[in-house]
């Protein structure tokens, strides 16, 4: 489903973020991408949702290849991926409902589907009762759950989470990992970039390590 073929990414500043990386992530996998901060984890994720493009090799997501993708295909690719960030990237003065619904609005979903999927996603993360509240009124953990609800609203094939618990306390973090694990169990592939070794140990799964742009895999 996602394949990296000898992918290299060097930024214009000269920094090499990823070097000769090759791996695959199949449907319904749960994968940790671990490494110290600045190791290139975020770059790997950006290469997948095509905010960045490789300077060597190619990235293939579904049927879309990084070396052949047309700019107008990118929005359609993003709809198949759900992305969750450390800083949530919610619209603070929008309600929880609107923050999730926007993911469906951009696809031109029917009113019925929009409502159904928005409520189902909010229910999935346990926030239906707060759907009328503005994002800024929610706690940090709730905001991240809301971001997850937005990420799964379009029933993506893969959820990408970039340090999803970086701003949260351990207990809340655990809740977020449980939620991601549940999403995985319900049939969606999940790729979590984290430097939280504790959680990685706890949620035994496939682990890809990255350090200084070089990838290696635990077996």
């Amino acid at each position: 489903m996602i394949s990296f073929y000898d992918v290299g990414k060097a930024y214009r500043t000269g920094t090499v973020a990823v070097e000769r990386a090759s791996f695959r992530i199949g449907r319904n996998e749960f994968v940790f991408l671990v490494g110290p901060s600045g190791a290139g984890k975020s770059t790997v994720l950006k290469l997948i949702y095509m905010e960045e493009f490789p300077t060597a090799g190619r990235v293939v997501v579904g049927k879309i290849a990084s070396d052949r993708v047309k700019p107008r295909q990118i929005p359609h690719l993003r709809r198949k991926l759900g992305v969750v960030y450390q800083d949530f990237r919610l619209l603070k003065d929008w309600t929880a409902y609107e923050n999730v619904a926007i993911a469906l609005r951009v696809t031109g979903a029917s009113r019925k589907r929009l409502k159904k999927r928005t409520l189902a996603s909010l229910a999935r993360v346990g926030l239906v009762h707060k759907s009328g509240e503005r994002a800024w009124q929610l706690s940090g953990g709730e905001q991240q759950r809301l971001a997850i609800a937005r990420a799964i609203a379009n029933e993506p094939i893969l959820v990408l989470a970039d340090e999803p618990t970086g701003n949260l306390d351990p207990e809340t973090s655990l809740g977020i990992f449980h939620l991601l694990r549940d999403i995985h169990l319900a049939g969606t592939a999940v790729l979590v970039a984290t430097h939280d070794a504790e959680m990685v140990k706890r949620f035994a799964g496939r682990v890809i390590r990255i350090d200084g742009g070089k990838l290696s895999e635990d077996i």
Partner: protein
Amino acid sequence: MGDIGFSLREAFVGMRRSGLTALAAVVVMSLSFLMLGLFMLLTVNLRHAVHLAQARVEIAAYVEENVAPDRVMAMADSLRQIPGIRSVEWISKEDALERFTEELGDDAALLESLEANPLPASFEIAIYDDYKTEGRVSSLAEQIRSVDGVEDVDSGLTWVAQLNRGIAVVAVLDLGFGLIVVFATVVSVGSAIKLALLSRRETIQVLKLVGATKGFIRTPFLIEGVIQGAAAAGIAALLLWGSYRFAVSFLPDFRFLSHFSLVLFVVLGTALGGIGAMVSLRGLLKEKAWG
């Protein structure tokens, strides 16, 4: 796209957020539209004035001193035979003096000091409307001048020609102003849109993240530009109407723009707002690629 409710709401949110800039854009646009409108109004009225003046064009043929009455009859006959001439009226020296006295009113006493009547006798010649062009009137004047006993011809056309040249200048000015207005509008809408874009950077980021197409992201900004253009054109039209009412109190014959021109004016303003938004969006959304 297709979510008009969302786009409209976002357009209004955008204008509220960029508040003063949006307002400033509307003010600048209104003023530039008003300028254009005033020139259009001036053009329309100059054209109208020329039209009226042309309708009133008459040729005066002054007659030599001391022509005998029977020669007057003969002259009138030969004048009537020239094609284009509708009627010929004899104004004797006495008639001319009488008119002049009337025109002078209180100053008529001045004439009493004169020993003889200094005014020449003349024919007042009315011509058909389709002969009232510059070329035809001057050729008529030539023919009239060649009639025996005619001393001088006054076609009154020189100032009509001048007026016509004036209109040509005004038309060029109209065009120039039109271009300035287009430029000012595109720039001011552009800067308002730029601010709106900045104030909604986060929203745009999220929209891109969840897979919004360019069209979806652009639509609210486009609507914003169109609304600003329409508001500015509407305000300018009202101010123009006010200026017209003011002018009419001095010049009762002053005319307003036709309904068609007025509609065109507003439609054009609205379109310019949209174009301004589009131009600035093209540049701004290109930065930091879509990918």
